[in-house]
């Protein structure tokens, strides 16, 4: 009987198109992802193949989310087929077994719903075969197929996920016999997935998140987080570890649900549960005997009344519907999860400032809003017909436009209503966390200006589409298809105008400092544009609204044409004119006044630039030595005028007869070069060459005058220039002045892109070279255009703001409504500085003769004392250990959150408002990340601004890694020798390194050859240098740094390399540890330690012998992650914890491990709870869970 029903289920599905459509869709998507550069899912970047097992597994997981809908369709069908065909009453009287019937259907649906996802492998295979042949992608991007990938994915992900989702959907379908409820069940599964996803935001929760993820998506992420490119290319997922546990958990849940569903299933049709009616009291009323006379009014005003009546009826029918309630509850739950949870950085949270809550709301409910609008657009359009009342409504004398507008209006009102609920939740969450600065206006403006117009367009589009097509489901499909296809068309043609993407606008982006930002005006215009577009669409929907039964589109068109008369026509003319005016104005602003190149043009220009001017790359250029700026900032107009007087010297050994400039037309540069002639003016690539009438001989100097200005005109397609703001202008010298010489940064840098365009392979950085002189004449900040520069600035701004340039404030005065400031840098510095202007509060303190100054927004005072403190501590430690500080001030300046970083300029450190100023540091035991960041930036005053490395591999180790190390030392001092606190901080650096190398696009390099790879110079650099000071002593590392700095601080080129530093380090390292320099700096070394068992034995003196049974491995990895084992001769710590949480380190000892298997015995004064190898975490291991074991007490 079971097989009968199974066969029946399969046969009927194979006869219907649904299965093939699903399979085809998935195949197509996988094909596109493998074969096209424009579709990116699954993380196949750099060295990871387009069809790597890792990539395909990600396809399975991501497309598996869609597949829940397929499961919903198949399981719902299986459960309800007999019910829907009303065959059940007949069927269930036949002598059939319940088991065979139930499980036959169930397993049938399960098999069916797993089939579409197999399309991934079909599509990927096709893509891998066709795309290289067709020349769409480089054949090197395709790797071998592993049959194991298919099998393992099927049994680890596809089958269990479909089983789990199916068991829920089947249960719901049996129980409620409603397709809608079944699909709502599918939606509920999504919500469960997203909620567990929010747990993943801190590495402490990774394991919980990995277990609670119903689809195993997060689990696979954790499972594969440290995969190297080579592993991504070869390893298929296996039933092991967290993946196994997760799968078992959700498989069991699925089994329990399906068993419950089996036992609650009965052939007997249940009587619908009915509420007991209250006894109705018959109401007394006076009968009206005659039909009351009524007057009918078809004049002015009736349309409005009818609109209100439609609107009201629509609103009621949406808000009272079950689907709405369920979807709203989901939205609320999802928002709740995201408001409650979420760590951002080093296990810390920010204060819930309004813009953060807004972004929580947008990210967790945006999709729901769209679903509500799309779904109910169909409901409203088809409601009359579904309720069978359309003939009555259609035969009343109302205007179809009235009802069309009422539909959109009620949809939009529902969105507004929901948003109010979400905002209320957001506000409550702020209050609940004790944050009382509630900005309702920000919530409302953000919603009405940024989100609502998009919803209006969506509602209008869907109402329009639904009106034209003949069936609600076709309508949904066509609507979604149109929007989806259109977005693909836009991206393929690279039309990035926001006028073409429904609901798009420049966007507003709230910052506590600068309000809604420069996109506001443009966004309002785009809002108007989209609202007018919507009105026109609704107008057409009204025109085409089927009042009578029509056969065919031609008749529809005829009726529409007949309706297009008189008032209706005038209204359209008015709308069309208004639309054209607004569209024209926007076009003028965004395409003519503020033109922008699309990506394609940009690439072509880069290629052309490289091809045309690469020949000037090694041209000798004069070097900047002195510069004097005059900058006028007009914040309210967002205009900036710059004048610079610069002196350049020929430091080379040949005369210079030409000067080369890259110009930024936005800044309208004007150059005054004495005795010169403009010989090339390339206005397309913005490149100019001036010929000097008298060549500049070695040692001679030349004075240039450069004027630029940035004038803000109208509004832009994007948000606009976010460096020049009404409050919070933040410019740097590179931006405001033209650069000299051939600029390599213009070149296309991506390896695969270069290949695609037939450009020669380009190395990221020059090869590290020992004892270099000529190749070390350029440093990586100024690229040879300057060395140490004297800078003076006169800067003015509006009288309510403070303008800051680098150096000491020499003079300050007011002229009219303008404030002027004159600054001078105290010591010649790198040509790398910022100019800022905002309404600042300033906190000032003295540290010896150095002014500590924090410039901040008045709303962000909370962390200021901690910041001052961090600057003071840094100065103290660095001056003591590295050398003197050469500036008379150390400034931190807040800038708006359009960028999110902190940066060090000479004596000046801009720091983003979203990153530190609002971080909640109230819990003293947490990581003080603000201190870490400030200490890092302060350290750059030594490492980058005193010692600056040559432009060569390893450069950033000498700046970023050193700054990370310095910052760690400041924190270490703070922690008073609490190794566990440092371990807790450094785990983020380990994670950063290991995750970073996992997604390396080109090649991983050893630390001393780092090519500006952040995961290496920050992550690995922190970890290595911290371990190094633990091994050879903080004093020794500092001494090496100090002597290295002494030689290179403010020194003329040649600039130092990492090899120069290692020369200073090696003498400080004892012979027994010299191997560390090779392993940690010169190789990519990974370790794998394991404590197999640990036991304790009581000694006669009352102490305990703790014996460790250890396994150890050391590997060198190559650039893509191939590992080769290395012989062991390592000094490693063994230790034990007094508590079972492994947080209180009782004692530890460093031992020499020379064998892969070894045993050691340590003595403990009292019986510890756990033992560990490398308890303070000094070594880079991918798996550390197996380093700790509970101690067995032996009698």
């Amino acid at each position, binding site marked *: 009987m079971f097989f009968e029903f199974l066969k029946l289920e399969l046969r009927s599905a194979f006869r219907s198109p649904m299965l093939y459509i699903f399979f085809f869709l998935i195949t197509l998507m996988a094909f596109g992802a493998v074969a096209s550069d424009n579709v990116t899912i699954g993380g196949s970047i750099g060295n990871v193949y387009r069809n790597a097992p890792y990539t395909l597994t990600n396809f399975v997981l991501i497309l598996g989310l869609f597949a829940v809908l397929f499961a919903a369709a198949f399981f719902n069908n299986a459960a309800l087929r007999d019910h829907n065909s009303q065959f059940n009453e007949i069927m269930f009287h036949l002598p059939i077994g319940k088991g065979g019937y139930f499980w036959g259907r169930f397993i049938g649906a399960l098999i069916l719903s797993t089939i579409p996802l197999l399309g991934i492998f079909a599509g990927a295979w096709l893509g891998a075969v066709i795309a290289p042949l067709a020349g769409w992608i480089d054949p090197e991007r395709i790797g071998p197929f592993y049959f194991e990938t298919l099998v393992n994915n099927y049994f680890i992900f596809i089958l269990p996920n479909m089983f789990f989702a199916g068991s829920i959907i089947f249960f719901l379908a049996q129980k409620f016999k409603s397709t809608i409820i079944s699909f709502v069940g599918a939606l509920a599964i999504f919500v469960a997935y997203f909620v567990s996803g929010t747990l993943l935001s801190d590495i402490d929760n990774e394991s919980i998140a990995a277990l609670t993820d119903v689809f195993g998506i997060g689990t696979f992420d954790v499972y594969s987080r440290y995969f190297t490119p080579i592993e991504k290319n070869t390893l298929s997922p296996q039933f092991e570890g967290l993946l196994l546990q997760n799968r078992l958990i959700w498989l069991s849940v699925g089994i329990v649900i399906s068993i419950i569903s089996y036992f609650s299933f009965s052939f007997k049709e249940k009587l619908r549960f009915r509420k007991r009616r209250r006894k109705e009291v018959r109401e007394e009323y006076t009968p009206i005997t005659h039909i009351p006379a*009524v007057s009918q009014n078809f004049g002015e005003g009736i349309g409005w009344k009818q609109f209100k009546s439609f609107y009201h009826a629509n609103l*009621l029918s949406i808000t009272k519907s079950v689907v709405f309630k369920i979807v709203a509850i989901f939205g609320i739950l999802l928002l709740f999860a995201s408001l409650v949870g979420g760590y951002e950085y080093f296990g810390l949270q920010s204060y819930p400032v309004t813009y953060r809550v807004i972004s929580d709301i947008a990210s967790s409910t945006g999709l729901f809003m769209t679903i509500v609008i799309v779904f109910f657009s169909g409901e409203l359009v088809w409601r009359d017909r579904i309720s069978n009342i359309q003939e009555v409504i259609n035969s009343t004398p109302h205007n179809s436009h009235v009802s069309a507008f009422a539909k959109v209006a009620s949809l939009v009102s529902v969105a507004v209503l929901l948003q109010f609920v979400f905002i209320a939740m957001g506000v409550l969450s702020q209050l609940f966390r004790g944050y009382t600065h509630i900005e309702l206006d920000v919530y409302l403006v953000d919603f009405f200006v940024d989100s609502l117009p998009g919803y209006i367009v969506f509602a209008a589009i869907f109402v329009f589409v639904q009106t034209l097509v003949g069936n609600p489901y076709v309508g949904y499909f066509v609507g979604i298809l149109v929007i989806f296809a259109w977005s693909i068309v836009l991206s393929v043609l690279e039309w990035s105008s926001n006028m073409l993407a429904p609901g798009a606008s420049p966007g507003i982006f709230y910052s506590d400092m600068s309000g809604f930002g420069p996109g506001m005006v443009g966004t309002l215009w785009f809002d108007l544009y989209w609202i007018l577009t919507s009105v026109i669409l609704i107008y057409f929907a009204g025109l085409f609204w089927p009042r009578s039964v029509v056969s065919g589109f031609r008749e529809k068109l005829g009726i529409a044409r007949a309706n297009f008369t008189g008032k209706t026509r005038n209204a359209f003319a008015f709308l069309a004119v208004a639309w054209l005016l607004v569209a024209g104005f926007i076009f003028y602003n965004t395409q003519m006044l503020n033109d922008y190149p699309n990506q394609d043009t940009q690439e072509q220009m880069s290629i052309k630039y490289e091809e045309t001017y690469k020949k000037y790359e090694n041209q000798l250029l004069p070097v900047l030595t002195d510069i004097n700026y005059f900058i006028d900032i007009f914040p309210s107009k967002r205009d900036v005028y710059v004048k610079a007087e610069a002196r350049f010297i020929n430091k080379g050994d040949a005369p210079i007869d030409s000067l080369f400039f890259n110009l930024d037309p936005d800044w309208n540069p004007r150059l005054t070069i004495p005795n010169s002639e403009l010989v090339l003016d390339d206005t397309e690539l913005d490149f100019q060459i001036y010929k000097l009438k008298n060549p500049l001989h070695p040692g001679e100097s030349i004075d240039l005058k450069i004027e630029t200005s940035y004038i803000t005109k109208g509004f832009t397609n994007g948000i606009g220039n976010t460096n020049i703001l009404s409050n919070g202008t933040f410019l740097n010298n590179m931006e405001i002045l033209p650069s000299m010489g051939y600029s390599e940064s213009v070149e296309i840098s991506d390896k695969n892109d270069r290949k695609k365009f037939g450009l020669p392979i380009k190395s990221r950085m020059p090869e590290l070279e020992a004892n270099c002189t000529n190749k070390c004449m350029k440093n990586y900040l100024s690229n040879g255009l300057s060395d140490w520069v004297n800078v003076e600035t006169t800067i003015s701004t509006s009288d309510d703001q403070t303008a800051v340039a680098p150096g000491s404030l020499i003079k300050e005065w007011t002229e009219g409504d303008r404030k002027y400031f004159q600054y001078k840098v105290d010591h010649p510095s790198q040509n790398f500085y910022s100019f800022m202007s905002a309404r600042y509060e300033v906190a000032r303190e003295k540290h010896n003769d150095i002014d500590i100054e924090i410039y901040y927004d008045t709303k962000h005072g909370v962390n200021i004392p901690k910041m001052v403190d961090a600057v003071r501590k840094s100065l103290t430690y660095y001056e003591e250990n590295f050398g003197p500080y050469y500036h008379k001030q150390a400034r931190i300046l807040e800038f708006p959150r359009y960028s999110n970083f902190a940066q060090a300029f000479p004596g000046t450190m801009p720091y983003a408002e979203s990153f530190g100023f609002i971080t909640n540091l109230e819990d003293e035991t947490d990581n003080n990340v603000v201190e870490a960041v400030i200490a890092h930036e302060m350290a750059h005053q030594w490492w980058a601004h005193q010692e600056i490395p040559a432009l060569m591999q390893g450069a950033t180790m000498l700046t970023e890694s050193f700054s990370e190390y310095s910052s760690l030392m400041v924190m270490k001092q703070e922690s008073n020798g609490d190794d566990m606190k440092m371990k807790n901080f450094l785990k983020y650096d380990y994670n950063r390194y290991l995750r970073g190398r996992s997604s390396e696009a080109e090649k991983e390099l050893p630390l001393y050859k780092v090519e500006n790879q952040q995961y290496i110079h920050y992550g690995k650099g922190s970890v290595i240098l911290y371990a190094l000071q633990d091994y050879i002593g903080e004093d020794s590392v500092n001494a090496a740094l100090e002597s290295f700095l002494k030689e290179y601080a403010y020194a003329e080129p040649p600039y130092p390399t990492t090899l120069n530093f290692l020369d200073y380090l090696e003498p400080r390292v004892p012979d027994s540890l010299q191997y560390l320099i090779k392993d940690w700096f010169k190789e990519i070394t990974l370790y794998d330690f394991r404590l197999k068992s640990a036991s304790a034995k009581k000694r006669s003196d009352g102490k305990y012998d703790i014996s460790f049974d250890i396994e150890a491995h050391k590997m060198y990895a190559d650039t893509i992650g191939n590992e080769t084992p290395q012989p062991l001769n390592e000094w490693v710590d063994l230790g034990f914890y007094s508590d079972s949480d492994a947080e209180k380190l009782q004692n530890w000892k460093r031992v020499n491990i020379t064998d892969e298997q070894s045993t050691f015995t340590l003595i403990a004064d009292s019986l510890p709870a756990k033992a560990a190898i490398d308890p303070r975490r000094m070594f880079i291991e991918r798996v550390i869970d197996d380093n700790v074991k509970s101690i067995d007490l032996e009698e």
Partner: protein
Amino acid sequence: MARLSIQNLSKTYPNGVKALDNVSLEISNGMFGLLGPNGAGKSSLMRTLATLQEADSGSAFLNDLDILNNPTDLRKVLGYLPQEFGVYPRITAAQLLDHVAILKGVSNKKERKDLVDFLLQKVNLYDKRNKSVKGFSGGMKQRVGIAQALIGNPQLIIVDEPTAGLDPGERNRFHNLLADVGENVVVILSTHIVDDVRELCSNMAIMNHGEIVYAGTPVAVLDELKGKVWVKTITRDEVEVYKTQHHVISDKMVAGQPQIHILSDNHPGDGFNPVEPNLEDVFFTKINPAVKA
């Protein structure tokens, strides 16, 4: 004095079915019954008159109002109850009627309320006016449908199968109500229940295959058949035999035995008794003219 004049109305569906075949009718004040079997084209005719369906050719005028070319004006004076009438879920009867009243231009709130209350009383739903119509039975929904058709000051009331699903009491109540409002306006009532027409209508037409096969008064058509209808109770297995020998108009069960009516100008003998012709006999005679003996 209202007058509905239909001239040569035709409509062929895309699948080739002739829904209306050159239909012409003159209808004046009062109740007009439209009889016909399922699929005869009654609903097509009524939907066309209610501006819900386009006609291929022909014309229809309510007094001077050109229905086919001025649908909006017709809708202002139309009351329409479609054959299948549903209601919005989650909306009460009073809300629904109020909504329809606004759509029909009853803009005065007080008037609207009085009218809705009156209609709810008349269809016996006043108690349930604030209940969601979702829980209403088929008959109750039908009563709501009747109520909404009477809103406004309709000059033309079209009711398609109005009494389907009503119990006898409700049916009487409905007939009275229609009689009340239908005095000075044109009321077209389509039905396949012959008794409805007999009880209510002064004029009637019978449709079959999209054509009008009879138009006139019930009295006249009954006169036509006077003395020509004969009845006999037979056994089940004799039915087929009688059908070959006589023009059997109807064959139905009475007290468990088949009873046949035949049409014959003369006494057929053979145990047949004369019977007073009823509209049912007319109906069957008219729609089966081909086998006329």
